[in-house]
């Protein structure tokens, strides 16, 4: 498996090093009640690049993803998606931007009243109305095959395991062929083998689709495997942003402590 990772890592280098970032977060602040979650955070991701966001629980990693997809609004600062600031954009205008983004929720968030095929077809049914039923069915089968879930079309989300739910969630996130992929704890709660499989899948997708990805995770091993860059968060801000080697070389106490405990 390690060999697969190495080859894939070499292959999933950002497509063009000099190209403009697809996601730019600049000086973003977010407070819930009296609890300051993000305190002037700034980061950016280019096309074909995977950024892993690491940090302790409650440091605002998931909040950052929710801000990027517009589920929450920042108190201040700007979030630019493909050059357009989405902070404060109304719901209907956010729709067009969200069509270019895929989001895998921490617990997959599959619609429990729909089966696997209907879950994956859900975005297609709403945004690809020109597709016939058979075309949609073919596309769903293709997506499920891509994530290794062929033959589960008629199953309900409650009948499949957590790892399988995440795969289906990933297939749904990829349905509209996004340019930006946001993954919230893709390996949380999974056994090491399933985690490894999900990591392989993310690497494969990155290699094939060259998306800009942001992965929020606690799993340093997974982050090291799938990401080109790692950003470590503490107290609502980025402590260090660089490669795994940069983290290892860092003299910052918090980084040392985080690497030691992981």
């Amino acid at each position: 498996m390690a060999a697969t990772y190495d080859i894939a890592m070499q292959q999933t280098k950002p497509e063009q090093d000099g190209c403009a970032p697809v996601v730019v977060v600049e000086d973003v602040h977010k407070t819930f009640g009296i609890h300051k979650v993000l305190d002037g955070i700034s980061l950016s991701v280019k096309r074909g690049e995977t950024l892993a966001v690491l940090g302790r629980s409650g440091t605002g990693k998931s909040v950052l993803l929710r801000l990027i997809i517009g589920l929450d609004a920042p108190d201040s600062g700007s979030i630019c998606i493909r050059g357009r600031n989405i902070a404060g954009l109304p719901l209907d205008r956010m729709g067009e931007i969200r069509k270019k983004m895929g989001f895998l929720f921490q617990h997959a968030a599959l619609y429990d009243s729909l089966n696997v095929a209907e879950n994956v077809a859900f975005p297609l049914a709403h945004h690809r109305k020109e597709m016939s039923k058979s075309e949609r069915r073919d596309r769903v089968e293709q997506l499920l095959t891509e994530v290794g879930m062929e033959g589960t079309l008629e199953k309900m989300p409650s009948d499949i395991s957590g790892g399988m739910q995440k795969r289906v969630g990933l297939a749904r996130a990829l349905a509209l062929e996004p340019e930006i992929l946001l993954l919230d704890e893709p390996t949380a709660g999974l056994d090491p083998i399933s985690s490894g499989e999900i990591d392989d899948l993310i690497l494969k997708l990155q290699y094939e689709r060259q998306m800009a990805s942001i992965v929020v995770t606690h799993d340093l091993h997974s982050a090291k495997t799938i990401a080109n860059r790692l950003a470590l968060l503490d107290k609502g801000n980025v402590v260090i942003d660089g490669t795994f080697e940069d983290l290892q070389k860092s003299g910052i106490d918090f980084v040392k402590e985080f690497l030691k405990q992981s």
Partner: protein
Amino acid sequence: MSDHGVIAVEGINPSIPKRRAEAMPSAANSGVKLMNGFFEWFGSLGIFCWKVLRAAVTPPYEWRELIRQLDEVGSKSFPLIALAGAAIGVVISMEARYSLTRFGAKSMFPATLVYSVIQVMGPIMTGLIVSGRVGAGMGAELASMKVSEQIDAIEASAINPYRLLAATRILACILMLPLLTLAADSAGLLTGWFAQSLVEPLSFHQFIETGFHGATFSAFLPQTFKTAVYGLIIGTIACFQGMRTCGGAEGVGRAATNSVVIASLFVILADVVLVKFILVVFS
């Protein structure tokens, strides 16, 4: 001085005014908090209604989901509503016969039953039963979707959840309540007549003819169609309570309970206003 055996006189025992002084701001704070909560709830409800209204009048329209909800609210409530209407018909029939016989007005029985069922009991009973069945169901379903991030997933898929989830459900309630009221009225009249004819034979034709004699559409239609307002209340409260839920399983339970309690209360309050309105406008 010992704490025991001392007559606590204000000004002499210094601890008493101090305690009162502490208690008063705390009571005032609770009052302020309560008022804040009250206005915050209505403010959030107003914002929610605005979002739903905007989503409902702009395309794309969610026809498939609307049809599914019409079935959910209408067809699936029909047996319960019909059964309750039938029971109410029997009860009114028995009560009316007893009272009218006492006052020597037995010939008024058909009209009494018709007016009682159609103008009073049918609409309010339908409103309250739908509040219980549909309000709790919608509140719990949406709350469960909210806490499991399914509503966020809908939004993340560039689909407006206010259009897909709320507007369709509210519209289904508005459209279905008058139809369910007609079903309750029909069941009530049928069983009311049947209960009466067991005691004293009366043909159904004669019962209907006497009951509706001299009646105009304006005597019955506003009473039936006012339930569309109940539908608006039930759908809006259930969707609002469900979609603002937080706090896991406990939150889901709370949303379901609040949906039923608040919707039922508002249906009764709306009835007071609507009855007066109908009397002023249509009489």
